């Protein structure tokens, strides 16, 4: 009996080796939200479907709406189903991913938005701060009241970084404009987003940007005749005359690169300790646009071309041209500009990025300050 068991084990192992030799990958995705949320989990799932079609050596499965504290359970079940690559797509899954990586040393893991790695567990993130900066230039040029409204999800470094980059863009086009911020403490809550947008309208804001996983702010702004910037997925369709541009993510860029390298044997379960994707415009992980391929809604092109900025570097330049120049500086492989290029002062007057310097990735992912021009409560602001 025991001999038979050993034989079975040997056959199974051999079979496993054959499967690996052929480079078949079964990738499991664990999502924090429902795939129909029109935001974060939706975007990850779109990328998964795209790659599943693209590669014949790839099979994918997913689990949606996984609560924190239960990712480990679902990782166990995906491994039991034969997954040899697992992506966990929420910061809250970090510790459970690292624990699972220790439990399954033969499985390759990648955790989105975290900072803990292991020999068989990488990290990855597609970040929007450059995109928000370019949206900010457009917003600064288009505001009449000088007040721009921002509906924020949570006061955490990621969202703070985006509001700061947006505000830097706004002030580059319009040095006197302000960005008014309201927090809703939810990633997905259309009712709260509507309330916040209406409160910002009451404060006199006439251009809107946001971090929330629904098109609510776009719709509320458009109903009141105001323009806005889409967030996370293409939102042009929700208000074709009122969506100027926006932020679009391309998770498939990162997933394609990672899975191809696993397939080619470049990434193994032993060499991921220092693999950290921090992908931006130049790697094609994010895009500026109201829709893919539509960087600026044609409706607003003339207004942006007519808005002339007296720029310290470029002299007299239109907002439209400034967006194009800055975009090229950041989208070309050799990046020559960063929105946070110093000197950057926080709104309390402290120098946070010295003259001529660029902040490190570490600074960017932990920053808590608010730049000059941000108006409103800012929980966790240094020096409080």
């Amino acid at each position, binding site marked *: 009996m025991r001999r038979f068991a050993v034989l079975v084990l040997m056959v199974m192992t051999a079979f496993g080796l054959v499967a690996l030799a052929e480079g078949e990958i079964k990738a499991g995705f664990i999502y924090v939200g429902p795939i129909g949320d029109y935001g974060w989990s939706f975007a990850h799932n779109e990328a998964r479907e795209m790659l599943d079609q693209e590669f014949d050596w790839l099979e994918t499965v997913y689990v*949606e709406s996984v609560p*924190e*504290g239960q990712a480990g359970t679902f990782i166990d*079940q995906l491994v039991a189903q034969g997954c040899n690559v697992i992506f966990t797509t929420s*910061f809250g899954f970090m510790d459970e991913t690292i624990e699972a990586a220790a439990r399954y040393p033969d499985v390759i893991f990648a955790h989105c938005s975290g900072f803990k790695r292991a020999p068989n567990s990488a990290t990855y993130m597609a970040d929007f701060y450059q995109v928000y900066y370019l949206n900010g230039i457009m917003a600064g040029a288009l505001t009449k009241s000088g007040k721009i409204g921002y509906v924020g999800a*949570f006061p955490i*470094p990621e969202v*703070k970084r985006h509001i700061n980059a947006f505000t830097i863009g706004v002030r580059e086009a319009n040095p006197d404009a302000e960005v008014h911020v309201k927090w809703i403490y939810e990633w997905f809550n259309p009712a709260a987003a509507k309330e916040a947008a209406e409160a910002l309208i009451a404060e006199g804001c006439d251009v809107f940007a946001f971090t929330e996983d629904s098109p609510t702010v776009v719709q509320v702004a458009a109903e009141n005749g105001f323009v806005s910037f889409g967030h996370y997925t293409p939102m042009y369709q929700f208000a074709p005359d009122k969506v100027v541009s926006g932020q679009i993510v391309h998770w498939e860029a990162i997933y394609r690169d990672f899975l191809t390298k696993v397939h080619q044997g470049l990434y193994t379960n032993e060499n991921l300790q220092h693999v950290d994707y921090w992908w931006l415009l130049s790697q094609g992980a994010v895009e500026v646009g109201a829709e893919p391929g539509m960087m600026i809604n044609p409706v607003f092109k003339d207004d942006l071309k007519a808005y002339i900025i007296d720029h310290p570097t470029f002299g007299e330049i239109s907002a439209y041209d400034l967006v194009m120049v800055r975009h090229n500086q950041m989208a070309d492989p050799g990046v020559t500009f960063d929105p946070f290029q110093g000197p950057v002062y926080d709104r309390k007057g402290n120098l946070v990025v010295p003259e001529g310097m660029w902040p490190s990735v570490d600074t960017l992912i932990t*920053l808590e300050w608010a730049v000059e021009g941000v108006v409103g409560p800012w929980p966790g602001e240094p020096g409080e």
Partner: protein
Amino acid sequence: MKRFGPFLLERRLAPPRGVVLGVSVLAVVLALLVGAVIFAGYGVDPWHAYATIAKSTLGSRYGLMEILRRTIPLLLCGVGLVISFRAQFWNIGAEGQLLAGAVAATGVALFSGIPRPWLLPAMFGAGFLAGAIWGMIPAFLKVKLKVNDVISTLMMNYIMIYIVEWLIHGPWKGPTMRGFAYTDTFSKAGWLPLLPLSRVHWPTLVIGVAAAVLAALVLARTRLGYEVRVVGESEGAARYAGINFLRVSLAVMLLSGGLAGLAGVGEVAGIHHKLLSPTQVSMNYGYTAIIVAWLARGSPLAAIVTSLLFGLIFAAGDVIKVSLRMPFQVTGVFNGLILFFLIGVELLMYWRVKLSPKGEGWTGKAGSSGS
């Protein structure tokens, strides 16, 4: 007695146990039948679906452990709610009391500096106390100011949710969490031990079972239990007997809230090891426990069975999501069906149905025969 077509309906005051059990099983079977239609509509063979669910939950050690893990908070909250419902105190606030326990345990784990062997007992003690205080406030308001207990206990949930949000975004935000809204991770001394190869934090499970047994003893054998039962049966009789309402209400909510608080300790010390967003600390366990308690029909021991049933339903939902690849919303539909039928067949417990051709059985005699 009522006539309904060819049927006669006769009111039954206390349904015998066999009827309660039989009718409950009938409800689950009906739900499974309707569920089969949904599976078939989605293109999944119902037999295959149920076989997969049974195999992955009841049929494997891993599945059984998952059921137990989900059972723990439901059992503790459920036993507490059984006690309060027996006294006709409608505690809808187990969710908030659970969170209060989680907050207190976190505070002790992170800031008390109590050394290893005493840290976990201190966390449980603080969690019980916090849940109890959060539960006793509505009791006090009800007796002294006649504030409706359903409303006040429900509203206290929201207050506690915002307290947790404030803590994790404000004073307790962990420096090691890089700005994300979590407290720091507890030191290992504040982690509950797990059953081998599982996520079952067994000390909390033991406390839950012990609480069910003790609650049954208290209700059946002690003066407090007697007073609780009298208050629950008839407020007038209780007043006449000179029972102190404030004392009974506070005692009931001390236990009810305290037990929910222990459930909160189990979640943070056994699973998360930190305080985090309230919707992640509790998967609405405090609300699901209302149904657990209600189906237990006043018996703390029965709450062990009903909480296991809901542990199974939650675990089955996970299987539907992962193994059957159905959208997560189906899990909710599936759970809802079982609840719908369990509550729907309630009628059958309190009404005896007899087939009787028209014209017969209009007298009380015919209807009561056979009882």
